[in-house]
C-alpha cells in the first residue's frame, strides 16, 4: 500500500498490516518511538493493534540521545 510517512508519499510492502510491522520494516521497533496515524496519537500498546490502510498519514518520531 501507499501511505504518507513523515510527509513523504511512500510505498510500503503489502505484508505490512499493523503499525508495529512498519516499525519492524524500518528497523526502529527496538527504539523508543511516538507514532501518530491520521492525526491521532497512539499508545505503545496500540502499535500492535492498529491496522494501516492505503493513504494513511503516518508520523513516526524516534528518540535519540546524541548531542
Amino acid at each position, binding site marked *: 500500500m501507499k501511505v504518507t510517512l513523515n510527509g513523504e508519499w511512500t510505498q510500503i510492502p503489502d505484508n505490512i498490516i499493523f503499525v508495529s510491522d512498519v516499525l519492524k520494516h524500518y528497523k526502529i521497533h527496538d527504539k523508543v518511538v511516538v507514532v501518530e496515524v491520521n492525526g491521532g496519537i497512539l499508545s*505503545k500498546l496500540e502499535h500492535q493493534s492498529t491496522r494501516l490502510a492505503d493513504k494513511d498519514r503516518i*508520523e513516526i*518520531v524516534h528518540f535519540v540521545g*546524541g548531542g
Partner: protein
Amino acid sequence: MNNRYSRQELFSPIGKDGQQQISNKHVLIIGVGALGSASAEALVRAGIGKLTIVDRDYVEWSNIQRQQLFTEEHAKNRIPKAIAAKNRLIAINSSVNIEAIIADASALELEDWAKEADLVMDATDNFETRMIINDVSQKVGVPWIYGACVGSYGISYTIIPGKTPCLSCLLETVPLGGLTCDTAGIISPAVNMVVSFQISEALKILVGDMDSLRNKLVSFDLWKNQYSAIQVDKLKKKDCPSCGPQRSYPYLSFENQTKTAVLCGRDSVQIRPSVPMVRDLEALEKILAKQTGAVQRNPYLLSYSENAHRLVIFKDGRALVHGTKDISEAKALYHKYLG
C-alpha cells in the same frame, strides 16, 4: 550605547521590551559539546543576561568538525570544554555574565544550578542526565528544552512544568544503549537544526511569549528529507512519577542513578547502568569495530582499547574503564561509546 541588538529589536515579537527581558534572564546549559556550543553562542549573541555552562569533558580533535566554539589550540592542549567555551563566548559578547563549571551534572548539583535559572537547555549526550534534568525541572518548576541528534537526524521538545507532558511521560522507558554521535557519526547541519528549534523556543520563553511555543514533538532527517511534528499532549500521564500529582522524582534518588566506583589500586572505574539491562555484545562489537581502537570479544565481555584507556563491557551492562581514576572521565568515555 551601540546598536548590537537593533535587528533583534526590530523583530516585532521581541522588540525593545523583549530585549530588555532577555538581558535580565539566566539560562543554564547542560553539556557544551555540539548542541551546547551552538546554543551558548546563540544566547550570548542574543544578549542573555547570565549564562551558566556545565561540562565534564575536554576538547578533542574529533569535536572540532561540529562543536563551533572550539579550535585546534583547544584540542592540542586538551582544554576543558566549559573553559574553552567561556573564553570564546566572552570574546563574542563581553557584557554577558558567563559562569563555566567543569563537572559531571549529578542530581544534587543540578538542582542547585537550576534553582537559579529561568530556563534549562539540554545539550547532553545521554538519557541518564536528561532524566535527571527532567525531574529537577518538575521539582524546581523551571522549563527545559530537550534536544538531541545522531547522523542527519534530530529531535526536540519543550517541557513546561504544569502544562506539557514531561520527558518521562513521552518515553515510558529510558532508552539505554542507543547509537551515539561517536558510534553512528553526526553532521553539523543536524546539530544546528536542533539548536535552531531549541533557541527559537528559548527566545519565546525568555520574552514571555508562551502562546507562540510550538507545543509539538519535532523531528527531522536532513539526509532523508523528512520532517515530522506531533502533538503529544495526550501522552501526559496522570500517574507519571516525575510530573503527576503523586510524584516521587525517581531519577533524583540514588538508586536510579548510574553507579560508579573507583576500583582501588587498579586505576579503573566501574560503571553500572541505572536500570538492569542486557547488552548485545555482538552488535556492540560491530559498532566499535568502526572506531580507531581495538575490539576484542568473548562470550562474557567485550574489550575496547583506545590510547591509554580500555573499556571492558559486560553482558549485564556493567563497564570497567581502565586507565583512569577520574569518575567524570570514565563516565564521559562510557557515554561516548555506549550511549
